[in-house]
C-alpha cells in the first residue's frame, strides 16, 4: 500500500539572504499551527468541538510559506481544512478556537464551525465544505479585483482530490480565458480521505492539470516553508501584473487521518509513523535554524512556551465565551430586510417549542 506521493525534496537553500526575524517568525507561526491543531484534537475528544474537524498537521510549512508571500490586498478562499490559514493570516487564535467551540465570540459567530471560518478584515474569505465549491468563488473574487482595478491576487486553496471535480476545470478555463489574478493552490497531501492521488486522477502530476487550459503549473515541496513562499511569490507576481493564473502543486505528508474521527486504517501504520518524522516541516526547519545559527535552543524553548500559553488562552477564552442566543436564530438570514421574514420573537417561540419549553 502506498502511503506517500512522489515527493520533491527541495534543495536546502542557504538561509543566509533571509532576514533572521522572518525566519524566526515562520518558525513561530508553524509552531502555533501545530500546537493549535494538537489542542484542537484534544478538545474534539473532550466533545468541546463537534461536527467534522480536519487538521493541518504536516501542512504547516505549506500554509506559512503561502502566507509569507501574500500581501494584505490578497484574498484567500480555502476548503474545510483551514484552521491554519486563518491563523497565519493573523486572526486571533482566541476567536478561532471560540468558533470551533461554537461560541458567539467565534470568527463566524459560532454559526460556521470548524469548516466555515471567515475573517473579512484579513481577507480570509471562508472555509467551504463542498469539495471544489470554493474554487469558482475564488475565481470570482479575482474577477472583481480585475474589474475594480484593485491590486492583489486571489488564492484558491484546495486539496489534491478536489482536482477531479468539474467545478475545478470550469474554473481553470474561466480564469485563463478571462486572464484573472488567481493562483490554484493545491495542497497535495497525497490523499482525498482514503483515496491516493493516482487512484483518483488519471494525471497524478497535478502541476500538469492546467495543460488542457494553457495554464502554467509548478510543483513545490510543501514541507519547505521557504520553497513554498518563493514559488508563491513568483506566481503571485505574474498573476498580479500579467493577470496570468497558475497552478501550484504543493506536496506534503498528511500526519493523521482525514478528519479527527478517521482511524486511518487504509494506510500502513509504520509508514505513517516514518512519514511523520521524515516529512515534519517544523523539526526540519528547526534543525536548519539551529544549524545556520539563526536561532538557538533557548529561542525554540521560549517560543514553544509562548505558543502553548497562547493556545491555552484561546481555549480558556472559548470555554468562557457565551453561546449564540435563540433570539438570534434568524439574525444573519438576510442582509437586506424584507417583509414576511421571521424575527427574534418567532425564533424564541419556535426554539422554545423544539426544546419542549412551551
Amino acid at each position, binding site marked *: 500500500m502506498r502511503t506517500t506521493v512522489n515527493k520533491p525534496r527541495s534543495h536546502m537553500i542557504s538561509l543566509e539572504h533571509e532576514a533572521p526575524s522572518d525566519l524566526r517568525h515562520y518558525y513561530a507561526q508553524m509552531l502555533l499551527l501545530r500546537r493549535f491543531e494538537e489542542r484542537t484534537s484534544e478538545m474534539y475528544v473532550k466533545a468541546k468541538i463537534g461536527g467534522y474537524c480536519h487538521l493541518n498537521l504536516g501542512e504547516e510549512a505549506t500554509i506559512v510559506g503561502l502566507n509569507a508571500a501574500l500581501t494584505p490586498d490578497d484574498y484567500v478562499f480555502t476548503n474545510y481544512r483551514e484552521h491554519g490559514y486563518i491563523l497565519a493570516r493573523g486572526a486571533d487564535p482566541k476567536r478561532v478556537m471560540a468558533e470551533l467551540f461554537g461560541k458567539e465570540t467565534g470568527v463566524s459567530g459560532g454559526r460556521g464551525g470548524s469548516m466555515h471560518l471567515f475573517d473579512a478584515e484579513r481577507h480570509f474569505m471562508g472555509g467551504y465544505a463542498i469539495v471544489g465549491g470554493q474554487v469558482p468563488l475564488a475565481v470570482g473574487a479575482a474577477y472583481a479585483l480585475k474589474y475594480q482595478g484593485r491590486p492583489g491576487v486571489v488564492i484558491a486553496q484546495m486539496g489534491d482530490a478536489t482536482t477531479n471535480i468539474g467545478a475545478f476545470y470550469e474554473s481553470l478555463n474561466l480564469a485563463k480565458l478571462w486572464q484573472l489574478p488567481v493562483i490554484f493552490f493545491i495542497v497535495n497531501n497525497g490523499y482525498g480521505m482514503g483515496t491516493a492521488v493516482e487512484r483518483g486522477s488519471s494525471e497524478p502530476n497535478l502541476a500538469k492539470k492546467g495543460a488542457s487550459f494553457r495554464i502554467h503549473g509548478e510543483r513545490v515541496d510543501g514541507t519547505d516553508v521557504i520553497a513554498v513562499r518563493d514559488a508563491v511569490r513568483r506566481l503571485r507576481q505574474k498573476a498580479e501584473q500579467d493577470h496570468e493564473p497558475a497552478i501550484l502543486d504543493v506536496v506534503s505528508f498528511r500526519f493523521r487521518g482525514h478528519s479527527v474521527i478517521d482511524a486511518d486504517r487504509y494506510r500502513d501504520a509504520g509508514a505513517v509513523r516514518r512519514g511523520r518524522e521524515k516529512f515534519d516541516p517544523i523539526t526540519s526547519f528547526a534543525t536548519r535554524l539551529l544549524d545556520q545559527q539563526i536561532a538557538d535552543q533557548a529561542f525554540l524553548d521560549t517560543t514553544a512556551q509562548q505558543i502553548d500559553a497562547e493556545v491555552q488562552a484561546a481555549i480558556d477564552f472559548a470555554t468562557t465565551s457565551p453561546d449564540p442566543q435563540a433570539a438570534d436564530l434568524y439574525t444573519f438570514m438576510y442582509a437586506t430586510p424584507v417583509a*414576511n421574514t421571521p424575527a427574534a420573537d418567532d425564533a424564541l417561540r419556535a426554539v422554545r417549542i423544539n426544546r419542549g419549553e412551551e
Partner: protein
Amino acid sequence: MSILTYRQALNRTLGQELARDEQVVLMGEEIGLFQGSYRITEGLLDQFGPRRVVDTPIAEEGFVGVAIGAAMLGMRPVVEIMTINFMLVAIDQVVNHASKIHYMFGGQARVPMVIRTPSGGTGQLAATHSQSFENWFAYCPGLKVVAPANPYDARGLLRAAIRDDDPVIFIESLALYDTKGEVPDDDYVIPIGKAEVKRHGRDVTVISYSRMTAVALQVAQQLDAEGISVEVVDLRSLRPLDRPTIIESVKRTNHAVVIAEDWYSYGVTAEIAATIQEEAFDYLDAPVKRVAGLEVPLPYAKDLSAAAKPSAHSLVHAIRSILK
C-alpha cells in the same frame, strides 16, 4: 407611463441599472453578441461594452460561482441562466454557497446578485426544457425568489432584486415575454416579500404567480360574466412568502384555488394549500383545490404536451368544483 412588453421592461431596466451602478454587470451565455437567446439583453452589449455585458462559456457552475465570488467583493452581478432547466448544473453554487454565505459566516459577507431565468414550458420544448424548479429555490432559506406576472412587476421587482444585498432568484416565463402592460417611467421599486391582490372578488380566491396569474385574471373575467366573483392573489415573491395577504383574502372569500405550472406533488401549490388550511381552517367552505402540471416528463407531441399543462379550462373546472 409607457406600454412595454415584459421583455422590454426587463431590457430597459437592465440598461438603467447598468447605467446607475458601475458595479452591476450582466453575465451569461449568449447575452452579448447573440443579443440574448430570448433577446432580453438585446442592444446592451453595444451600449455598455464587453466589460459590463459578459458572454460566458457553457459552464454554469463555474460562472455562477464567479458571480457569487465577485458579489462577495462588492460587485452586483446579474446572471442569466438560459432556462431554469440548466440551473441544475449550477445549483450547488446557488444552494450550497450563495444561500449560506451571509448566515454561515456570521454576517461578514454579502452576496448581492441576481439570477434571472425563465421557468415553465411552452412550444413543445419537451422533457428537459419545460420544467419548473422555483419550488426548489423557494425551499431554501437564504435565497429570495420572485416571479413577476406582468411588465410592471417585472421592472419593479428586477430593480428591487438588483439593489438587494442577498441572492435573488428572478423567475421569468417564455410565454410572458411578449405580453404587454403599462409601465411607469419613474424609478419605482416593488418590495420583495409582498403579494398583491391583482383583482378583488367575493366568491373564491385564486392564488398564482408568473404566467398563471395572467391565466387567473383571464378566468376571473370570464367567470364574472357568469356571476362568479374571483379574487386573484398574485404571490410575486415565493420566498419570503406573504402568508398574511393570502390568508386575509381567503378569510373573505372562504374558497381557494391555487394554480401553478409546476408538477402537482411537492410543487408550489402544496405549500400554499397547506398554509391556507393551517391558518384559515375555520373560514374554508371547501378544500383548497390545487391545479398544476400533470406528473410526467413533458412529452414532445403537441397535443399531449399541451394537455399535460394546467390551463384556463382546468382552473375554471377547479373553481366550479369547489363552489358547487
